[in-house]
């Protein structure tokens, strides 16, 4: 497939990736001969119908799963052959995740949720508190630091989720349908926030969505259909 490639060496490079799942005797082919590059500083939207393999692809980029075939390179490092343990450490250092259903720990308040990834670093309590405060300020939720998830609105919970995703200043922010469970207004606020993180803080973002309104905010959109990239639209 000849696609317009981003300039400079890519931050994410996916080459010849194939992925299938074994369900009993049945082999489910999800991704086939897939190539993709993401440049540093890009805000990429992955679009496609349900079941087209968007989440599977995002999981491969984020080191949550390994491809059946092909290579996944992030920031110059091949991650498709790392062990589970190595992948866990790698994710802690390089990846921030934002999920559709926010997935906050219900037993922890907002700041404790944001702090979670920092528990895997060598920062002491005071340093962690500093980073948490900065991340919460960035998403505009300093005044909700002590609130538990169940007392926050969906939009607020997702902003806590984003603060958790960026608190370690990861190489890459991966979002799986971050606005999928929100109304238009709250969704727009989340998209504004992601745009700001991309433009003002230079965060590289890959966002899965099936909402054209959301993908319109990205700097580039890749369409996935039955496990293959069908076309790309650069803004």
């Amino acid at each position, binding site marked *: 497939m000849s696609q317009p490639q981003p300039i400079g060496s890519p931050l994410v490079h996916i080459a010849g990736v194939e992925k299938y799942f074994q369900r009993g005797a049945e082999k489910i082919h999800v991704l086939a001969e897939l190539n993709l590059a993401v440049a540093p500083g890009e805000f990429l939207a992955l679009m496609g119908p349900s079941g087209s393999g968007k989440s599977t692809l995002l999981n491969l980029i984020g080191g949550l799963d390994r491809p059946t075939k092909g290579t996944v390179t992030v920031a110059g490092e091949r991650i498709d052959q790392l062990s589970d343990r190595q992948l866990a450490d790698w*994710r802690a250092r390089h990846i921030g995740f934002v999920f559709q259903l926010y997935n906050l720990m219900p037993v922890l308040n907002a700041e404790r949720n944001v702090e979670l990834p920092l528990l895997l670093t060598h920062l002491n309590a005071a340093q962690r508190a500093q980073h948490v405060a900065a991340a919460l300020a960035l998403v505009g939720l300093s005044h909700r630091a002590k609130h538990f998830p169940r007392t926050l609105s969906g939009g607020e919970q997702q902003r806590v989720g984003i603060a958790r995703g960026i608190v370690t200043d990861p190489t890459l922010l991966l979002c799986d349908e971050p606005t999928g469970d929100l109304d238009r207004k709250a969704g727009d606020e989340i998209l504004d926030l992601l745009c700001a993180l991309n433009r003002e803080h230079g965060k590289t973002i890959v966002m899965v969505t099936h909402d054209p309104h959301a993908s319109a905010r990205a700097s580039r959109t890749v369409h996935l259909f039955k496990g293959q990239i069908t076309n790309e639209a650069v803004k």
Partner: protein
Amino acid sequence: MKFAHLIWGNLTRKKLRTTLTLLSILVAFVLYGILCAVKQALIGGVELAGADRLVVRHKVSIIQLLPESYQARMEKIPGVAAVAHQTWFGGVYQDPKNFFMQSPVVPEDFMPMFPEFLLPPDQLKAWQQTRTGAIVGRNTADRFKWKLGDKIPIMSPIWGQRNWEFDLVGIYDGAKKGTDTTPMFFRFDFFNESRSERARGYVGWYAIRVKDPAAAAEVAKRVDAEFENSPAETRTEPEGAFVQGFANQMGNIALIVASILAAVFFTILLVTGSTMSQAVRERIGELGVLKAIGFTNGQLLGFVLAESCLLALLGGGLGLGLAWLFAARGDPTGGMLPLFHLSTGDLVTGVAIALALGLLTGIFPALTAMRLRVADALRRM
């Protein structure tokens, strides 16, 4: 421990379920503690028994009497250092429920034989000067609020079916933690002259101190040989075996206690195990998120194990604490179980059982959490 709030948060997430599980564990450990104290009361005397003491009783049974004249013959047997006798008085103070043991003894023989009874020297002197004098252990003295100088009436159904009256001249303490301080002792000379002529000159059993504990078995044989073919043949055994034989009459206590506890702990294992596996099952998605963030399989295994161990140790600790408080108040039966107490060994074993319970109930859910494939877990949100 920077993960403590996460583990504590998970433990307290389902308050009712955690409380109920905690209560079942607590009840099991209270039961454990009390049964241990009962067992200690019944067989604890074995451990406290003097290694250098033998007990000589009538060959037929403990209730058959032996002649007082045996003492002089025993003292001449090689290897014997000292001899003292006791006799079951079986008296009643006010009410048969107020049970405690009483025995006439010869103070000069008896006190050196049993150094675990600590009697102030001036009280011993007073006892030697008072024919009707009696001494009693701290436990019984406190129980009936007796003071030195009190007159103690004891009704004896065995010795003449009448009231005996003693003057309390001494209160002794126990030298060791488990020493039984319930018995009362009074003077044999007073007792001997006051009972019917027919019964005079007989005693219940003898204690012998041997010169060398290693040779105790040979001394015992020599004693029994000495009285062979006499009207009152003897049976001599180490004090520990004597106490054990006493306990064995009540069945194999340790086995009964162990069986009850095994049943209780099996139930608790199921209760706690199901709580823990439920706790992990309803949290699959969150575990997936933690893995996505970069928590390792080993860390998640540790979190679940820490949670189950915390649950078991909290319940177990509270239960053992309550049992200990209960046992610290002393014999709950009012005299039947003078050695009732929760030993440090049983407490330590209890904590170890709690820890084992925590590990055992946590390990399978913890392995589930650990083996969870992160992409699958996230799909289950």
